[in-house]
């Protein structure tokens, strides 16, 4: 069902956790639909210095969360904004068709976190 990469990221998820006083937080999904993803960003200048996630969801949801954090760590905000759902799924060697909406969530959560960062920065 899942690729080896998905299973690896599910069993050994990267960057699990929270960041205290994050520069940006994004949350998508809801428990009613069976999935919630929350992504925390620590931004230094334009660079994403640290990123963490917490996810309630299936194997694909956890794996995409983990993968997206790995993909953005050390990247610029601009680069991060270019990460698409398809790119996350591809980085995991693909997802089962029924699970494609999980990959939609991970990139969405990231983009929400960046939006939050932008809002916070503007406010400052």
């Amino acid at each position: 069902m899942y690729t080896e990469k998905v299973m690896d990221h599910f069993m050994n998820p990267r960057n699990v956790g929270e960041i205290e006083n994050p520069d940006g937080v994004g949350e998508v999904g809801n428990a009613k639909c069976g999935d919630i993803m929350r992504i925390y960003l620590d931004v230094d200048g334009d660079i994403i210095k640290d990123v963490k996630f917490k996810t309630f969801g299936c194997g694909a949801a956890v794996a995409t969360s983990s993968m997206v954090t790995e993909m953005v760590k050390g990247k610029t905000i601009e680069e991060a904004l270019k990460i698409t759902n398809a790119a996350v799924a591809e980085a995991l060697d693909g997802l089962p068709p029924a699970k494609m909406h999980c990959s939609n969530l991970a990139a969405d959560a990231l983009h929400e976190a960046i939006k939050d960062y932008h809002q916070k920065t503007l406010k400052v």
Partner: protein
Amino acid sequence: MRRVYLDHSATTPVDPEVAKLMMTYYTEKYGNPSSVHSFGRDAKAALENARESVAKLLGAQPTEITFTSGGTEADNLAIIGTAEAQSKKGKHIITSAVEHHAVLETCEFLEKNGYELTIVPVDEEGLIAVEDVEKAIRPDTILITIMHANNEVGTIQPIAEIGKLARDKGIVFHVDAVQSFGKIPIDVVAMNVDLMTVSSHKIYGPKGVGALYIRKGVRVIPRIYGGGQEKKRRSGTENTPGIIGFGKACEIAAQRMEEEAAREAKLRDKLLEGIMEKIDYVKLNGPQGEKRLPGILNVSIQFIEGEALLLSLDMMGIAASSGSACTSGSLDPSHVLLAMGLTHEIAHGSLRFSFGRQNTEEDVDYVLEQLPKIVERLRMMSPLYDQ
């Protein structure tokens, strides 16, 4: 790694004795039961022998048993076949909110084709109230279809009472007994049942075989036309090895049922107690005690999602199942758990362990060793879990 299969409600391994018998009919006694020659006659005799074994476990007559390709086909034959046979009398059908998809989807297919459906609710234990069924009955009600025991939570319905009601009103009564058959006693006569679905692969027989009990005198329009096998009720070359295996599985189930039910109930209770002791925020789904199947345990583990649980258990060699929507890729979790009033969140975290003949105390110990660690790990990842 230890492998612990706790998903017997989904399917069971074929009993070795059953498998051995089937082999003979695959490779040696392979005749078509419709054939005149001895190969055919041998197959035919064994087929009829199997029919007797199935009938016996239901308290039915062999002539009342029609073999099908499984529980799903039997449900379809019972429901659509009755609807078509009775459509002049009326077009109203009563079923429950916790039926298997094989019943619900079939009823919904009929609904799209001009029939009316009343879906009776269940309480928080998954139990149907006989009064609710009674209230739902109308002059044009032609069929009541209610399952015997639920496949997700194990709740056993008051079939005999509903049967009496249906019989009194002259309404055809179909019971999906796929989960209870061979696990707890069944007597179609005492239960006032007209049609009953059973399936082989839930009782250590082969997949792809089932049967519909059709009480003598009850008319069902066939769904599959052809060579006129099964007294024209279900055409197609009979799956003789499969049917013979099913018959053997029934014989074995009849012998072991009582002892095995007690044994599995004990394992189940041990597992439940252990889980409750070791993990917090856990909810038992379904009734306690007598009103449930001995082999099924369904719990909701809060703050985590079922598929993630299943995958993690699987990595440790433990096979279970979940009513989570994410296991199937749909969006809504189990209709059974929702009908019992669970919130989506809780339903998503449900876990079903279903016991079988080869399970041991050690299996339970192993699950109790692994599960808490898995829950801990997943909860640490969950945004819903703030200790």
